């Protein structure tokens, strides 16, 4: 009974003693200890800085997506190459505006949606022209979904929409390239031989993100109704859900709604696709994991090399201190106590390496963050990576310290005391 009570106490006392001894040993052999841990230091420094870089990259990507809007859902037509749709043509697959009527009432998770058209066209103003400008037809609700401010003039209204007026919004790049004045409201430009009055200037897309321009910054917006009447174009829709967390519900509601409005039978495949920005995020995460795996391999090798170094120095330490081991055994240290002492020493040595490695990793991270145009300015070492590094370093200590520690624990006390 007493042994049951005192055993944990004994273990703690031995552990504390072992840790103090280990620290003393490392302090007494400062140079040797530092050199021994170089492998561990390199391993930990590289793993922490790679993780820091990826974390920074991820934060950057997330920030880019935030400006694009993570709660956006794109609804595009899709032509299934199976079932009865195999013999359809694109004209039958494409969307029609009336298929979206009543969407907001039927899909409570959707905050807003806009129908859109997207054509590359030539835009003229006098002698100046832009080839391949993006001419988008949009509903007025577009302004609530896209957070792009109107820097001059006014946004679209229901009046523009319902009357199908030939009005347009342009981006500053279009204005500049067509040599229009800064105050260009009320001027007219020509698209497809038709004249459109400029009612406003809307800011361009976010530039310099992870994915470059995300398309042209030369954009002209016209009311959707106008585009529909003029060109009978290919259309798609962009919707926003009330909260990013509601994305899944919103997609389910949209799918149900569209299957009904497009009169799909129970066994028919979807003739549309819902695309969410998060999908791209998943792709990025996969890529990041692949990089982490490769870096993990490199780190594994350096930790292995480091571990062998630790084992080597621990063997030296055991043979140097053979007499001490003999004496400890003579005064009653059980083999397990000796094992613990040397295991703790190797673990402490590795954790010391882990500490140096984390500091070196922090230094490297600060350097990485300063690389211009590498999108790594947000790099930092997350707390879990520090925990992981110490965990790995400690495991290396246990794994590679085990053999020398067992060797010490098995020493014969008489032989050990006779050792010179």
């Amino acid at each position, binding site marked *: 009974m007493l042994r049951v009570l005192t055993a944990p106490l004994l273990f703690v006392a031995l552990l504390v*003693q072992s840790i103090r001894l280990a620290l003393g040993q490392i302090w007494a052999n400062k140079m040797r200890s530092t050199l021994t841990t170089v492998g561990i230091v390199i391993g930990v420094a590289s793993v922490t800085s790679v993780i820091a870089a990826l974390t920074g990259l991820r934060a950057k990507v997330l920030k880019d997506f935030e400006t694009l809007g993570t709660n956006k859902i794109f609804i595009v037509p899709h032509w299934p190459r199976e079932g009865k749709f195999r013999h359809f043509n694109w004209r039958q697959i494409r969307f029609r505006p009336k298929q979206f009527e009543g969407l907001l009432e039927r899909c409570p998770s959707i905050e807003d949606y806009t129908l859109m058209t997207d054509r590359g066209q030539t835009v003229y103003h006098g002698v100046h022209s832009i080839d391949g400008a993006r001419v988008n037809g949009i509903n007025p609700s577009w302004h609530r979904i896209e957070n792009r401010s109107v820097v001059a003039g006014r946004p679209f209204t229901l009046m523009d929409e319902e009357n199908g007026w030939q009005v347009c919004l342009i981006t500053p790049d279009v204005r500049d390239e067509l040599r229009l004045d800064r105050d260009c409201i009320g001027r007219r430009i020509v698209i497809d031989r038709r004249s459109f009055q400029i009612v406003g200037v809307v800011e361009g897309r976010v530039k310099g993100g992870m994915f470059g321009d995300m398309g042209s910054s030369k954009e002209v917006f016209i009311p959707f109704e106008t585009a529909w009447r003029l060109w009978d174009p290919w259309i798609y829709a962009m919707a926003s859900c009330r909260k990013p967390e509601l994305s899944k519900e919103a997609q389910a509601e949209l799918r149900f709604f569209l299957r009904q409005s497009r009169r799909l039978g129970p066994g028919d495949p979807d003739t549309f696709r819902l695309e969410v920005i998060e999908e791209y995020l998943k792709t990025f995460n996969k890529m990041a994991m692949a990089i982490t795996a490769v870096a993990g391999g490199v780190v594994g090798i350096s930790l292995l090399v480091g571990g062998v170094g630790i084992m080597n120095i621990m063997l030296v330490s055991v043979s140097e201190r053979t007499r001490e081991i003999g004496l400890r055994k*003579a005064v*009653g240290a059980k083999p397990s106590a000796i094992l613990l002492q040397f295991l703790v020493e190797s673990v402490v040595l590795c954790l010391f390496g882990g500490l140096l490695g984390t500091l070196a990793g922090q230094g490297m991270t600060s350097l990485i963050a300063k690389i211009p145009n590498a999108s790594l300015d947000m790099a930092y070492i997350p707390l879990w990576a520090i925990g992981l590094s110490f965990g790995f370093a400690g495991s290396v200590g246990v794994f590679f310290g085990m053999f020398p520690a067992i060797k010490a624990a098995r020493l014969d006390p008489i032989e050990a*005391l006779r050792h010179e």
Partner: protein
Amino acid sequence: MLICLKNVTRVYKVGVERIHALAGINLEVEPNEYVAVMGASGSGKSTLMNILGCLDRCSGGTYELNGRDTTRLSSGGLAHVRNTQIGFVFQSFELLPRLNALKNVELPLIYAGGTTWLARRTRAKEKLERVGLAGRIRHRPNQLSGGEKQRVAIARALSNNPSILLADEPTGNLDSHTSRDIMMLFDELHRQGQTIVMVTHEEDVARHAERILHMRDGKIISDEHTGDRRLTPEDMEVDDA
């Protein structure tokens, strides 16, 4: 009966040769005896010491310590016996160089477990006072003289209140003056009831004991009780001269 050896043998194998370091030892030691083991080198006295101290196992025969058979104990069990029943004093002191006197004396108490930090410290201080080193508890071995080192070693051996104090040539590395002080300390401990078994090849040292065993070729060839004839310091002065 404190120690009871029955027909103990110890055989070493060196290559194909078998060396009988102990060839049938029968020995009984009562509590509070003061025994000196003498003999030429190779006579088996160190092997006997190792067996008595549970550092080594006998090849044949039985060794009972305090009525308990030790021959079947595991290495952990032997460590426990060494920790609680036996105190070692070595010729070359064997103090750990990086620990001060107090920490060295605390060492067996740490491995014994079940004591608090304060209890260990108090006990270690008490033992150091007993060997006359109350003023030097914070000194490290390299700051102590040979005699002082051996006193620390004796305090360490006494820290767990062992049944037997085993001393292997305790004065072998000391000058005659210091040797005399150490032997007086042993006499003092014996007077207080400590059982002592000591290996020595010096007649002067052996003469402090009440019982002298002579060994040759792994056997005890003589076992003489010299009675209670501890030497007074005045006798030692004469001896030195």
